[in-house]
Structure formats: C-alpha cells, structure tokens
C-alpha cells in the first residue's frame, strides 16, 4: 500500500467511525471471514440477526447457505424466503437468484410472471446477468408475450455490459434479423467481441465468418486462429475449419498461427 492510499484509508476510517452502519458492516465482514474459513454455522449465526434487522446482504447470503446446504440442511424454499426478503430491499443479487429460481421451478414452483417482475427490477438496478435473462424471457415469450424488439434491447444491453454469451446471442439475432434489421457487418463485429471474451461458440462462428468472408474481408489466417481457439475451448466441429485452412495456408504457416492462438488462449 502506498503512503497516499494509507492516508486515504485512515481518513475513511475516521470519517465512518461512529456511524451506526459501521458496526453492522463489521459484523457482516466477520460473517464473511467465518464463511471463508468454511465455518458456515458461525457465518449463519453472525448474519442471521443482521438479516432480521434488515441487512439485505446478510439475508441474501443466508439464502445462499440454505440453497447450497452449507452449515444447514439444504432447503431451497427457505432460501427463497430469504432471497425474497432481500429482493424487496433492492438487493440485486437476491433479485437475480429469486428470478432464476422461479424460472427453474426447483423450489416452491415455477412462476414466470413473478420471475419477470424481479428480472426487470434487477436489470434496472444494473445487473448484466439479469438483463440477459430478461432478454431471453422476451425472446421465448415467458412471463410476457414474445417481444423480439425488447429481447434485442435487453440482450444487447447485457452484451454492452460485458456478458460474452449475450454478445454471442445478439450477434446471432443481428445475423438473422430478429428484433432488428439483419446486418452481416454488425453481426461480425459482435461475434468478434464475444470471441475475444472467450465465448467458444462465438469463436467458432467468427472462424467461419473469416473463412467465408461474411461481414468481413476473408482471411484464412484469422479463420484458422479462431477455429483453433474454439477447438481448444471444446467446439469439436471447429477442427474442420482448422483442417481446411491449414491445407490452404501450408503446415509451417498454420503452425505459427496455432502457436499464436495457443498463447492468446493461455493468457
């Protein structure tokens, strides 16, 4: 820690000392420390009074302990109760988990309408994962009538917020003209960003785009590069593109490109 940040930390401590929130924050942190040491019962005992006093983060974490059966008998219904309480207090993690549990229907039943309600709140509170799921709900028409424009909007926002799977999906929608006008160049750019974010199927799709010159000038080198990365990430079919491109480029050139891809993937 530099001396400047030490001073900043000291100033922060002075500023917040005596504020009633501090005691609670500290206790929440104590619970976190117990959790990290796998003392789940102790974590639960620390967080429970905080949750009762209205600490939404503590309530969310208790829900997670019940859901995963850590320190307690696993109880998805009780988990849902704690998440609902935290969600009412605008805890975005709780809103997200509550919505997903209502979609999965593995606690006390499926409820798409209520799931949608919480996803909207979580998305408006800035949760990228919730934005993505919300977009999927509109795409499939779950909890609300199918709405491709709304699906495009929310999946796009999730992609902008850095969810690679959302970028991949919005790329496919842009390619096919779902919820927007079809546009091969824009789709290519979205595939590229998802691929950079290590989304395996986006990497495979990007390789094919380079191979066929779809939305981009063709490039055997880039096609091989991305096919190799996709293959490394488990897309077996990408091996076909790799073989085709290696044949065109020659073994020596192909080897160098795969080495480059290997390094990028290892980073």
């Amino acid at each position: 820690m530099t001396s400047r940040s030490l001073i900043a930390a000291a100033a922060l401590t002075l500023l917040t000392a005596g504020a009633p929130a501090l005691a609670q924050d500290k206790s929440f942190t104590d619970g976190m420390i117990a959790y990290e040491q796998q003392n789940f019962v102790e974590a639960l005992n620390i967080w429970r009074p905080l949750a009762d006093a209205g600490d939404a983060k503590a309530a969310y974490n208790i829900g997670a302990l019940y859901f995963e059966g850590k320190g307690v008998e696993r109880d998805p219904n009780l988990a849902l109760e704690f998440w609902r309480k935290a969600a009412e207090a605008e805890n975005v993690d709780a809103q997200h988990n509550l919505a997903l549990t209502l979609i999965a229907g593995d606690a006390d039943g499926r409820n798409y309408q209520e799931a949608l309600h919480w996803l909207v709140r979580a998305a408006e509170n800035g949760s990228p994962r919730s934005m993505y799921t919300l977009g999927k709900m509109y795409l499939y028409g779950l909890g609300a009538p199918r709405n491709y424009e709304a699906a495009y909007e929310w999946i796009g926002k999730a992609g902008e917020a850095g969810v690679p799977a959302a970028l991949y999906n919005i790329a496919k929608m842009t390619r096919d003209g779902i919820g927007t006008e079809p546009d091969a160049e824009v789709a290519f750019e979205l595939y590229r960003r998802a691929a950079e974010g290590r989304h395996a199927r986006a990497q495979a799709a990007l390789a094919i785009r380079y191979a066929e010159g779809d939305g981009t000038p063709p490039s055997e080198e880039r096609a091989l590069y991305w096919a190799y990365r996709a293959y490394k990430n488990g897309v077996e079919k990408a091996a076909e593109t790799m073989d085709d491109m290696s044949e065109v480029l020659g073994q020596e050139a192909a080897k160098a490109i795969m080495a480059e891809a290997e390094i990028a993937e290892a980073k």
Partner: protein
Amino acid sequence: MKLLRTAALALALLAPFSPAAAGPGADHITAMSAQAITALQASGSTLAEREKALRPILREGFDMARIARFVAGRYWKRATPEQQKEYTQVFSEYVLATYARRLGGYAGEDLKVLAEKPAGPKDVLVKTQIVSGSGGPAIDAEWRVRTGDAEGPKVIDVLVEGVSMAVTRRQDFASVIRRDGFDGLINVLRARAGRQGVRQ
C-alpha cells in the same frame, strides 16, 4: 432421498480416500477425490475461487457430453443441432456450477474405495462408501466409469444407494420437456446454472 443423493455425491468427491481396490476405475475415483481435496485446501484464495478450481477437475473427470446426451433420452435426436449444442453447454455449466459450489460445503468425510467390477463391455462399477466424520450413517455410492475410451477413464453415472443419478435426472428432464419443450429445458438449466453463491 434426493437431498441425500446430492449430499452423497458431494461428499464422495471430497472425502480423503482409503484405497482398498485397484483398477483403472478405482484409480480414477481415487485421483479425482485427491485433486478435489487439494483444490479446496489451497491457501491464499477465497472459497469462491477454490470452488471454481473444482470445475476443471469435474469437467475432466466426467464425460459431460455423454451424460448430457443420455439424460436427454429420446428427445436428443428430435432436437436441432443448434439445440443440442446449446443444451450440452448449458447442462455442463449447470452440473459444474451446482456441484463445485456444494462441494465447498463438505470436508472431513472418508471415502472408502471398496471394489471394482466390470459393468458391460466398456464400463466398470467402482463401489465406494462414504463414512461421515460426525458419526452419521454411511452412504453407499457406486461410480460407473467408462474405461474403454481413448481419452482415459471418465465417470458417466453415479449411483447413490443403488439409485442412478443419470436415470433420475432423465426422468426429471423428460417431464420438463413434455411441459415446456426442449427450449424450455435449456431455459430451466440456464436458470439453474446462473444462480450465484455467497457474495462479499
């Protein structure tokens, strides 16, 4: 019973092993268990990070693609190639996310590898017993390991107290597909995989 099975699977992977049986399947289970313990005991990282480190062990040790296909049952062939791809990926995510996180909750149980016997031309069944450190009842778990493939041994099913996880899951998935279609199943699995654990 469902809870017990989940707990048993989680325990089985974590428990320190007492090797008593030999064979490629038994060795595979013993090695996975040892790796899981090492990953969870790593110092200098958060529990969430340690749980995440379990995922490659599970991914390598299980044949996720084969399990996914089996569990989809007769609906696999009716799905489009795009659905099959998405389902396989989401299924794997769901299994990895769920078990890695739940495994973080277990420690101190003893996994005894008791015996290995052939099960069909390609598989062996590894019989294990999970003995609770706190004196609870011992749980029998059997691991169906495919040993005939080139990539080395892979777990393809776990039977807890004689009940197959794959068959149980297949029934669960079939009822979801009948109600909501194959996309509905993908959606349910994505929801199950997307939940988060304890947060700072």
